[in-house]
């Protein structure tokens, strides 16, 4: 890729730490707002956890997120990503549930699939319509800076009132239902609606992917709604796969930021956020180079930002304690397989193989998989979200060969036996699970990689290896995300902002946090209380 590199400058209006998608969206938005912007990325290429890299000779994969479905269409348009080189290998990809030994179940297009009972078929249509209404009503909550509570400012009060009205506008019946299910667990919600274990398993998996929860954990309807709200904001294109993998998205974002005047430097890890007179005034690189800035905006996770880059001495003890208590231990592992052949999933049509495959035969199965993780063990029968990106984008592998990319749960960050020995064993468990649905798969494998949360922490510099930079749960959501006092993208240190997945609304390749943060910076660099 080529990125416009402007001449080095000694001082910028804004320095953005981290060239992940949120950092780049933030930088592009700031540059478009007329600020001089420098993006500092520690890795050799931009992308953060949305990058494409080789994992076996000749095989490339989206090493973090592998599907794009949460980024608002409006943002893609605003940054003109398609004119900056973003192409699609696939859009509107289907979702199919796999249950070994049973026919597959299609979840796309409201079709329901041939295996559903008439009762489930009807319930599924009604459920989808209702959840989409809820999601649409909540979209504005995501796209705004969360209001503070208890202030006398009218802006905050108005924001709260607006949210209340938005929900009120759903009508009495829907509003009551939303207020009821909002705090529920996804297990109960799905049990209320459906009969088919396979359908419930597949729908339940979306609620717990990337979360430290099982389907019976209260708060999993929230995580499900989170996904649906973002998808609603993203528009109708559905699950998408950028040509060249997720890295291509970030390259386009970098081009957009560059075109707007931002400077991007890669391979420059930041050692420290410099503070002068209680204000962030720039950064110190690991190389010893020092760069000044009017504002520093960090897309790193809150723990890294506050505890490592800034240092607790600039913060009060209560705030540091809160940051320490952010729950950010990941449980999702990423499996990459290099295959000499298309994966032999039985009874999966080619069209399904081009989409997303879910392996979560029932809610109980997911819950049991989660049980292990609570005690520091990996799941004996893991659940997965699988894609075969080479079906849509053959260039990711040598001719005729394939890549399988799967999110595998649950793999606790702090595995009791340690990932040193656990990694290979869990990879075997995961491959065995796949083999059950795709007999003969093992024989096709010519290269494999498993990224545990510990590996994700290392490779992507995310403390805890959690893809949301902090659990998505009521106590870490909205005006308390990541912690009170830093939930409006501002921090207790003047001139220092957050713009990563740790902020409202959260992670996933969405970019809303980056854009909201940029707007907060543009609105005025004031100190949060």
């Amino acid at each position, binding site marked *: 890729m080529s990125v416009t590199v402007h001449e080095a400058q000694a001082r910028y209006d804004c320095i953005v730490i981290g060239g992940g998608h949120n950092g780049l969206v933030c930088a592009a938005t700031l540059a478009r707002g007329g600020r001089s912007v420098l993006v500092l990325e520690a890795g050799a290429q931009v992308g953060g956890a949305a990058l494409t890299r080789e994992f076996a000779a000749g095989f490339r994969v989206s090493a973090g997120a592998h599907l794009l479905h949460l980024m608002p269409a409006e943002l893609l348009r605003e940054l003109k990503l398609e004119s900056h080189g973003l192409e699609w290998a696939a859009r509107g990809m289907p979702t199919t549930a796999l249950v070994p030994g049973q026919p597959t179940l299609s979840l796309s297009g409201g079709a329901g699939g041939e295996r559903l009972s008439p009762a489930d078929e009807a319930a599924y249509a009604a459920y989808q319509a209702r959840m989409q209404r809820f999601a649409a009503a909540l979209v504005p909550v995501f796209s705004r800076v969360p209001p503070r509570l208890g202030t006398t400012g009218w802006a905050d009060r108005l924001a709260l009132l607006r949210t209340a009205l938005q929900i009120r506008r759903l009508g009495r019946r829907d509003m009551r239902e939303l207020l009821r299910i*909002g705090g529920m667990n996804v297990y109960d919600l799905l049990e209320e609606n459906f009969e088919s274990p396979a359908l419930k398993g597949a729908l339940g998996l979306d609620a717990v992917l990337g979360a430290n929860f099982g389907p019976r954990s209260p708060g999993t309807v929230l995580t499900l709604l989170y996904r649906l709200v973002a998808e609603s904001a993203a528009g109708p294109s559905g699950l998408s796969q950028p040509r060249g993998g997720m890295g291509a998205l970030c390259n386009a974002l970098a081009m957009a930021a560059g075109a707007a005047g931002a400077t991007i430097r890669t391979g420059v890890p930041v050692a420290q956020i410099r503070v002068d007179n209680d204000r962030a005034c720039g950064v110190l690189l690991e190389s010893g180079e020092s760069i000044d800035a009017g504002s520093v905006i960090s897309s790193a996770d809150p723990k890294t930002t506050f505890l490592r880059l800034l240092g607790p001495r600039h913060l009060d003890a209560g705030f540091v304690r809160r940051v320490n208590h952010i729950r950010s231990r990941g449980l999702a592992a990423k499996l990459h397989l290099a295959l000499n052949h298309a994966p032999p999933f039985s009874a999966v049509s080619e069209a399904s193989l081009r989409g997303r495959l879910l392996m979560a035969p029932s809610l109980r199965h997911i819950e049991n998989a989660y049980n292990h993780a609570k005690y520091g063990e990996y799941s004996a029968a893991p659940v997965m979200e699988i894609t075969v990106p080479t079906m849509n984008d053959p260039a990711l592998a040598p001719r005729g060969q394939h890549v399988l990319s799967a999110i595998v749960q649950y793999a606790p960050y702090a595995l009791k036996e340690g990932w040193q020995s656990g990694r290979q064993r869990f990879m075997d468990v995961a491959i065995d699970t796949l083999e059950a649905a795709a007999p003969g798969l093992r024989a096709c494998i010519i290269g494999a990689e498993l990224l545990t949360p510990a590996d994700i922490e290392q490779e992507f510099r995310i403390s805890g290896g959690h893809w949301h930079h902090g659990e998505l749960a009521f106590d870490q959501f909205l005006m308390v995300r990541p912690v009170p006092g830093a939930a409006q993208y501002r921090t207790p240190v003047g001139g220092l902002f957050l713009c990563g997945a740790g902020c409202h609304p959260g992670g996933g390749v969405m970019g809303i946090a980056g854009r909201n943060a940029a707007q907060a910076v543009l609105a005025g660099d004031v100190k949060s209380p």
Partner: protein
Amino acid sequence: MKHPADLDAIIVGAGHNGLVAACYLARAGLKVLVLERQPYIGGAAVSRRLYQDFTYSNCSYVCSLLRPEIIRTLELPKYGLQVIPYEGGCTMMQGGGHLALYDNHDALRREIARHSKRDAEAYDRYSRDVMRQCKFIKPLLMREPPDPTSFKPRDLMELLYLGKRFHGLGEARMYDTLRFWTMSAADFLDEYFESEIVKAHFAGSSIIGTALGPRSPGTAYVLLHHYMGDIDDTVGAWGFARGGMGAISKALGASFEASGGTIRSAAPVAQILVRRGRASGVALQDGEEIHAPLVISNLDVRRTFLETMDAKDLPDEFLGQVKNFKIRGSSGKLNIALDGLPRFPAIPAGSPCTRGDMHVTDTIEMMERAYDDWKDGRWSRAPYIDMLIPSQIDPTMAPDGKHYMSVFIQYCPYELADGPWNAAKRQAFGDTVINTIAQHSPNFKDLILHAEIRTPWDIENEVGLTEGNIFQGELTMDQLLFNRPIPGYAQYRAPVRGVYMCGSSTHPGGGVMGAPGANAARAVLRDLGRAH
């Protein structure tokens, strides 16, 4: 049997909430009849003699949450209620050793320091924070939850009241409150303590009666139950009722009768009668009909609407919601007659520790694993138990030199994965519990004279609580406040005019608190234009 002519109200079920509602209505001058299925009153707040001269608090076993304003207004002490405070408590550790519990903050702080100095300091912070939440929630217990979808002045005023109260906390506390009400007990305790035993001790109260584990979000707020009594400055808000829990029901019954009310026991109600869209009375199982314009049900909502009313009298959507109301059996109970006081080697002789509730679960992981068993449809192999020997404090409970032990068990499922409950399974469940205790008390088994083993199935059959759920419905966010029991019907009024709910299925929920009964009575009186 004769009834007072022109009854004003019939109360179905003489549980504590039914009796509290009855008392308030009778005191307001209504002619009230309480109908009870069993030959004795009290529901789950009963004292029974099932073995020789031992008195068992068969179901509920601790007087902790009964609202002091109810005790005062209904003059319960005058009618014989006497609550004796706990003198201690403890959690025993697996490898020996224990954490003693004292009512006195400083004494408990010193005890915690024995396990961790840091935790002792954190304890100050912890009790201050939890107490603050207690003070916030307390006034809400005795109020009718507003309907957030309504534009009626009353609902708007009530929402405004809640908003103002919340706002009054100040910004930082508002965030704390949001978090406290949504976190898991395990996460919340992790923010304060490092010692496993300290965390395990506090976490215990968060799982009692619920189908959730300590790591389930939404369990933290239950931690405040331990503090609920303290803030009223009422000695004995957390203690033993002299004569067992039946003493509460007895006092309520006496107070009710003194106000002119009538109680009829052994009179099971078969159906709530509806005529021309409003309540007209009840039909008993033997066919007798008793008429009154108001029927107030102390039964849980599932029982009230699915079993005691005719489906054609109720809206379909409402019935669907009632079917979705979550009432899950998760607790068991053992009542044991002992030939003497069991020895617990982990506790120093003469320690007041045994004169309160005793536990043997010393890590949160053990509790969570106990919960996993429940999810899989079996009773916990290493259950969380809350064990008390009330006869040490209240000699009326057992003959001289002998003792009564109450053991509450979490978790025990209503439906077992391997088929229905039977006598052999009940015994096996009891043995699991007895063996768990025996691991900490070498002479315990030899002292057992009689044991009453109660599974959720037994509790359902005897007390009438669906699935044996002690709270008449899970206390999760989707079933609290304006969602309890059914969104849109959280104000004690059923969809049929003249039918009300007053059991723990309604706000604020279970525990021998009496607030649902008092709130329901207030709603009835307001509808009659007799609100004070």
